[in-house]
C-alpha cells in the first residue's frame, strides 16, 4: 500500500489519502481480529502479539513513507507491516508457518519482514529496532536518497539501553530518523506510568538533543500531522524527532494473556476513542466522504482476509529441504 501514496501527502490529506488511510487501518483491524479468532482454534503456533487499537499510529506515520524509506518494528509488528505495504496474504501464511509466507515460514509473527518494502522486520528483541534504523537512516543520508528511517518501539522498549543509545546516536550523526514510541500503557503486565521514570517518554527527547512530541494515538489526524512534520524535517536534514503516541492495545500482551492487571480501559477505549470510529465520524458527513464507500472498503477487506486465511490454511509447510538453507549467502 505504501508507495501508492498521493504526492500531496505532506499537506492535509486529500480524500484519496483518507480512503487509503481508512483502508490501511481497517486492514490492520480485520487482520488482527481474525488472527485473534484463528489463534483460538489452536492452529497458529508460537507467540502472537496483536496491534488492534493502535492502527492510527502505524497508518498515520507510514502514509508519509515511500520506497526510499525504512521502518523497524517490534514483536507487535503486523500493523507496521501492513501500513508499510507488506502483503497481508503472505503475512497470514507466515503466521501460520507456511512455505509461501513472506518469510517462507521460517520467521513467524515475531519476525515478519519484507526488506524489499523497506520493512526491516518485526523483532523479538525489545529495543532491537532503533539501532538498525540509525543504520538505514545513515545509508539514506550517505546515498542522498532523501529517505528516512522510522523506528517504532513500545513504552517498555523506551527503557532498553539500545533504544536510548540510538536516540543519542541519531542526534549526534544528525540522521534522517524518526523514533515513534508507542505508549500503550503496558509492557506485558507492567504499567508504563511505573516503568518509565518520567511523566512522558517524549520528555527524554531533550536529553538526547531532539524535539519530543506527544500525540493522541487514537486520532489518526494527530498522528499523521505530527509524523508529517517530523519526517519532513528529517528529509530536509533537520535531524531526528521523538514522537510519543499514547493509546491502549485492545487485546492482551500476547494471545492467552488473562489481563487481570487491567481495569476496564479497553471497553472504554473501544466505546469512546476507537481510531476507526473516530475517523469515520470525522470524514463522513461534513467530512465529505460517503459512508457507503467506507462500508465498501470494509467488505473488500473482509473478503481479502477470508481469502488470506483460506490460502494460509491450504498452504504447504516447509520441509526437510528448507531446514538448513538461508543461513549464509555463500557457504
Amino acid at each position, binding site marked *: 500500500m505504501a508507495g501508492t501514496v498521493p504526492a500531496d501527502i505532506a499537506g492535509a490529506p486529500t480524500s484519496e489519502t483518507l480512503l487509503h488511510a481508512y483502508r490501511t487501518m481497517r486492514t490492520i483491524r480485520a487482520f488482527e481480529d481474525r488472527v485473534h479468532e484463528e489463534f483460538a482454534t489452536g492452529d497458529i*503456533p*508460537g*507467540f502472537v502479539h496483536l496491534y488492534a487499537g493502535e492502527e492510527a499510529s502505524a497508518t498515520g506515520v507510514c502514509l508519509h513513507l515511500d520506497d526510499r524509506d525504512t521502518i523497524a518494528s517490534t514483536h507487535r509488528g503486523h500493523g507496521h507491516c501492513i501500513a508499510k505495504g507488506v502483503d497481508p496474504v503472505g503475512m497470514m501464511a507466515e503466521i501460520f*508457518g*507456511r*512455505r509461501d509466507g513472506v*518469510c517462507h*515460514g*521460517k*520467521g*513467524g509473527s*515475531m*519476525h515478519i519482514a519484507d526488506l524489499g518494502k523497506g520493512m526491516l522486520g518485526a*523483532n*523479538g*528483541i*525489545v*529495543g532491537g529496532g532503533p539501532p538498525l534504523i540509525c543504520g538505514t537512516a545513515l545509508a539514506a543520508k550517505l546515498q542522498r536518497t532523501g529517505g528516512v528511517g522510522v523506528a517504532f518501539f513500545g513504552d*517498555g*522498549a523506551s*527503557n*532498553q*539501553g*539500545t533504544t536510548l543509545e540510538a536516540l543519542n546516536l541519531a542526534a549526534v550523526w544528525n540522521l534522517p530518523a524518526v523514533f515513534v514510541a508507542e505508549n500503550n500503557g*503496558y*509492557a*506485558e*503486565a*507492567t*504499567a*508504563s*506510568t*511505573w*516503568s*518509565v521514570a518520567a511523566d512522558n517518554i517524549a520528555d527524554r527527547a531533550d536529553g538526547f538533543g531532539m524535539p519530543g512530541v506527544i500525540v493522541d494515538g487514537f486520532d489518526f489526524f494527530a498522528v499523521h500531522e505530527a509524523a508529517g512534520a517530523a519526517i519532513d524535517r528529517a528529509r530536509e536534514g533537520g535531524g531526528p524527532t521523538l514522537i510519543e503516541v499514547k493509546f491502549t492495545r485492545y487485546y492482551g500482551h500476547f494471545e492467552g494473556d*488473562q*489481563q*487481570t*492487571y*487491567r*481495569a476496564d*480501559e479497553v471497553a472504554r477505549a473501544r466505546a469512546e476513542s476507537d481510531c476507526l470510529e473516530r475517523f469515520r465520524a470525522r470524514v463522513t458527513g461534513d467530512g465529505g466522504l460517503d459512508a457507503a464507500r467506507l462500508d465498501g472498503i470494509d467488505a473488500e477487506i473482509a473478503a481479502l482476509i477470508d481469502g488470506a486465511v483460506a490460502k494460509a490454511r491450504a498452504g504447504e*509447510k*516447509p*520441509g*526437510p529441504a*528448507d*531446514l*538448513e538453507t538461508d*543461513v549464509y549467502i555463500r557457504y
Partner: protein
Amino acid sequence: MARTISYREAVNEALAQEMARDERVIVMGEDNSGGTGAPGEDDAWGGALGVTKGLHTRFPDRVLDTPISESAFVGAAIGAATRGMRPVAELMFIDFMGVCFDQIYNQAAKFRYMFGGKAVTPVVIRTMYGAGLRAAAQHSQALYPMFTHIPGLKVVLPSSPYDAKGLLVQAIRDDDPVIFCEHKAMYDTTGDVPEEAYTIPFGEANVAREGGDATIVAFGRMVTVALEAAAALARDGVECEVIDPRTTSPLDADTILESVENTGRLVVVDEATPRCGMAADIAALAARDAFGSLRAPVQTVTAPHTPVPFADTLEDLYVPDAQAVVNAVKAATGWKR
C-alpha cells in the same frame, strides 16, 4: 515426603522455601510479580510462563518487577550480591543475554579473580532456554555453551522436577555466580519431589540409566530424549549408560570418563548448535582423556548450524530426537576399523 509436582512448581517451591528460610534472598525480573503500577491485580503474571507466580503475594518486598532494562537489573542483582544479598534475577529468555551479557561475564564472573579473591557474588540468574514452543529464532535458543565458556560462572541444566528444585536451592546457597537454565518446554513435566528443601551438589553427574555397551551424555531436556533412545535400544539388546552431568560448569568429568572406559563408546546429545558447543566439549574430553578406551568414533547429536526455525515442521526437524540418538549409538556400536 515426596509428591508429584511439575518442573514449574519445583522451581517455584525452591524459590519460596529459600525466601522463607533466608531473607537475603530476593527475586527480580520482568513481571516476576506482574501488574506493578497497573489498576488491576498484583502478582498478575509471575513471569512470562508463571514460574514465580505467588511469590510476590507471599514476599511483597522481596519480589521486584523491573523495567525492560536487563543490563540494569541483572547488574543490580550482581551489585546487591556483593553487599550481602542473595538475588535471583530472571533473564526471561536466555536469548536476551545479548543485551546484558557484559554484566554477567565481565563483571560478576570476573570480580573474584580481578579483585584478588576478595569478592563474593552469590547471584543466581534464572533463564528459560530451548526449542519446542514454536517461538522462533530469538526465543528458542540454547546458548548455555557460551556461559560454559566463561571462567567464573557455574552453569546448571536441570532435567527433571527433582533436579530443578535441588539444583536451584544449591544455586541460591552457592557463593559463586550461577546461570540456572530452565527448559521452557519442560515446565509441565511432572515428577516426584520432596516437600522439604534439599540440595543437589554441583559437578556431580546423575547416572540416569546404567549400561555397558555405550555411554550417552545428554543435557537438560535431551536427557529425556536419551532415555527414550536407550529404552528403544535395550529392546534390541543394546544397553546404554545415560549420564546427565546436571551442571556443565563445573563438569563431572570423572563420571563420564569412567563410563567411557567401561563402554568404549560415547554419544553426546546436546540441543545447542554444534560449533563450540557442549557436544564438542564432551567429545574433546573423551578424545583427550579416555582415548585408550574408545572403540569407536565419538558421535555427536546436536541441532544443525542454523537459527531455530518457526514452522512446526522445521522445528521438529531441528531438535534432536530419540531416533537420531538411536542412529548415533548404532553408528558407534556398529563401527569397524
